[in-house]
């Protein structure tokens, strides 16, 4: 029977099936790589200690500190005492249980979803979990990767397995070519998908992104797309790995080397494909020929419009759905926006370029093209937070730090930073931000803060002008 790539990876990882021969019981699924960070792991380690359990495979477990680390000078102590306690707890837990940790001062520290692929921990055909919903990012390399809660973190630590119900398959085929690939990015593609299918559109499914447009994207751009699968409700996004993926992985710290690597590539090439006649339980197609830059206006990632559009009326947004109409009314009030206002008239106070969605070298390079030789508006405070120390080092080697700093951007140390504002990088009440992150929920970037999701080039252009602009005119 023809199978999708997801079904092949799934079948390869079944340790035990609760009800042989039927599809409705849970399966015990083997986890090849477990990533940890400081926020969702301490209670899991406490659980292990309480029950006298060990970590079954510390050699397949990797940890870093990203969510609440400061992005200011790393040589200074962490001022926030509660953050410091949480960071110290992770260090102690890793030491006690023998887990590799890329700590605060490690040259490989960074956002867990940036450093996994960067160090070759993420490999095609593997299963990866992390106590973080954006684990879906790793699917860009043909990895079945998804976020889990803390109880499941504890379960994986103790058993290296997870009980799961087989998700449904959902194909999103993206056809056509963006007219201006520098101005219309992977971020615009995924925002337009979420606008179309909604924040629950992918619930219960694993999305496979396919089509010529996906093949044309770089690995880092594919990560942006897979990253936001969870904003459409899907736990994971997947892309069949191709030569670009194998080239990306080759030679990284934890990637198999030499002949072993070549053997694995042969195996991946032959096995990690979706068969021609494989059936998906759901299937949609999106053509990007006429796609334009996207901007979110509301308080969830489906509330998105074209940069050429005006803020919608609740009735137009809701399309007859009363719950959605009420949601739009709430969102307009929270965001302090009036229907029919052109989005390009909306003034901003802050710009954040960073997060596991858009903080890789590609993202910073593209944004720097917009910034070069220009100045940040005097009304705006703008920051760039590279996704990892390695991204930061590489960007500095290319002189990007200078481009951003000369324009008036802050150039900071790596971490999750203002994507969720667990450190001191937060919006003040009422502040409005053009952000390259993934969630525009109420208060996400700081209590009372207002977030507009955009691509790195759109964020960069907004920083210069002090309001949203159609970046196609600049690139």
């Amino acid at each position, binding site marked *: 029977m023809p199978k999708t790539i997801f079904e092949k990876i799934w079948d390869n990882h079944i340790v035990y099936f609760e009800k042989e021969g039927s599809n409705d019981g849970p399966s015990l699924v083997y986890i090849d790589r477990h990533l940890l960070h400081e926020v969702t792991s301490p209670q899991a380690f406490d659980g292990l200690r309480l029950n006298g359990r060990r970590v079954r495979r510390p050699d397949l477990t990797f940890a870093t500190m990203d969510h609440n680390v400061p992005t200011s000078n790393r040589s200074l102590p962490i001022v926030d005492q509660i953050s410091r306690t949480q960071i110290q707890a992770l260090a102690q837990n890793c030491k006690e249980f023998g887990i590799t940790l890329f700590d605060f001062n490690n040259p490989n520290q960074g956002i867990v979803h940036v450093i996994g692929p960067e160090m070759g921990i993420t490999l095609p055909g593997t299963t990866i979990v992390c106590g973080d919903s954006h684990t879906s990012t790793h699917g860009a390399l043909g990895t079945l990767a998804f976020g*889990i809660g803390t109880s499941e973190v504890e379960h994986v630590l103790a058993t290296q397995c997870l009980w799961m119900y087989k998700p449904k398959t959902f194909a999103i085929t993206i056809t056509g070519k963006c007219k201006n690939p520098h101005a219309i990015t992977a971020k615009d593609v995924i925002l337009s998908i979420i606008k179309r299918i909604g924040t629950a559109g992918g619930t219960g499914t694993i999305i496979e992104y396919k089509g010529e447009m996906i093949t044309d994207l770089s690995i880092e751009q594919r990560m942006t797309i897979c990253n936001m699968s969870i904003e459409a409700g899907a736990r994971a996004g997947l892309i069949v790995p191709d030569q670009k993926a194998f080239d990306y992985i080759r030679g990284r710290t934890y990637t*198999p080397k030499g002949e072993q690597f070549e053997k694995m590539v042969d195996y991946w090439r032959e096995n990690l494909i979706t068969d021609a006649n494989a059936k998906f339980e759901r299937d949609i197609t999106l053509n990007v020929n006429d796609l334009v830059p996207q901007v979110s206006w509301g308080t969830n990632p489906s509330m998105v419009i074209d940069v050429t559009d005006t803020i919608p009326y609740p009735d137009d947004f809701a399309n007859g759905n009363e719950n959605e109409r009420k949601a739009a009314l709430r969102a307009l009030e929270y965001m302090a926006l009036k229907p029919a206002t052109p989005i390009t008239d909306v003034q901003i106070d802050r710009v954040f370029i960073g997060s596991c969605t858009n903080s890789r070298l590609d993202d910073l390079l593209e944004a720097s093209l917009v910034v070069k030789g220009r100045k940040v508006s005097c009304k705006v405070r703008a920051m760039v937070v590279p996704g990892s120390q390695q991204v930061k080092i590489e960007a500095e080697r290319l002189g990007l730090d200078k481009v951003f700093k000369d324009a008036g951007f802050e150039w900071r140390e790596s971490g999750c930073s203002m994507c969720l*504002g667990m450190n001191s990088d937060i919006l003040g009440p009422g502040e409005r931000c053009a952000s390259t992150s993934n969630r525009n929920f109420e208060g*996400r970037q700081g209590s009372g803060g207002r977030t507009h999701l955009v691509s790195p080039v759109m964020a960069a252009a907004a920083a210069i002008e002090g309001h949203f602009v159609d970046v196609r005119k600049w690139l």
Partner: protein
Amino acid sequence: MEPFKVIKSKVTPLDISNVDTDQIIPKQFLKLIQRTGFGKYLFYDWRFDRDGNPKRKFVLNDPKYTGRQILLARDNFGSGSSREHAVWAIQDYGFKAIIAQSFADIFYINCFKVGLLPVSLRSEEIEYLFRNTDLNIEIDLFNQQVTIGAIITHFKIDEYRKKALLQGLDEIDVTLQLESKIAEYEKKNKVIAPYTDKP
């Protein structure tokens, strides 16, 4: 985990769709390293103003709803972040079940891990509940049945999850009994692709 018992209560209605886990438990409370005590921070930014005073209009601050054990919500409840702190907060506040039209995937799974019951009902039943928030409700997990005043309706739940809740099973214990199967998988898998080798 405590075995799950029949719940008899009225509902606390939260008439908002797509409630994300950032609203259920805002980020500033995720720095705590214990599992308990999150109830006082539940829906913090909706419940309290910037000075920490209760906002009158928010449903949890209405004394009428004090002590109710069932949270009533709309569609896609618990979307966004995977933070299990969200279910800890709901449970610690005193809720034992959530009735909603639908739930986000990770939140739904997290509920079962701590013994909080998520019940999905049809949209017309949800509408009826929102119009009649003072009816006595009984949730009987064993019979997969919700009694709303004089109306009886049934809900779907996976058998394995139901058993785990009713018996208060420790999932890790269950899995550890399958150790030989896990070890066998690791041995076999090395031949296919050496993912389970130390990287």
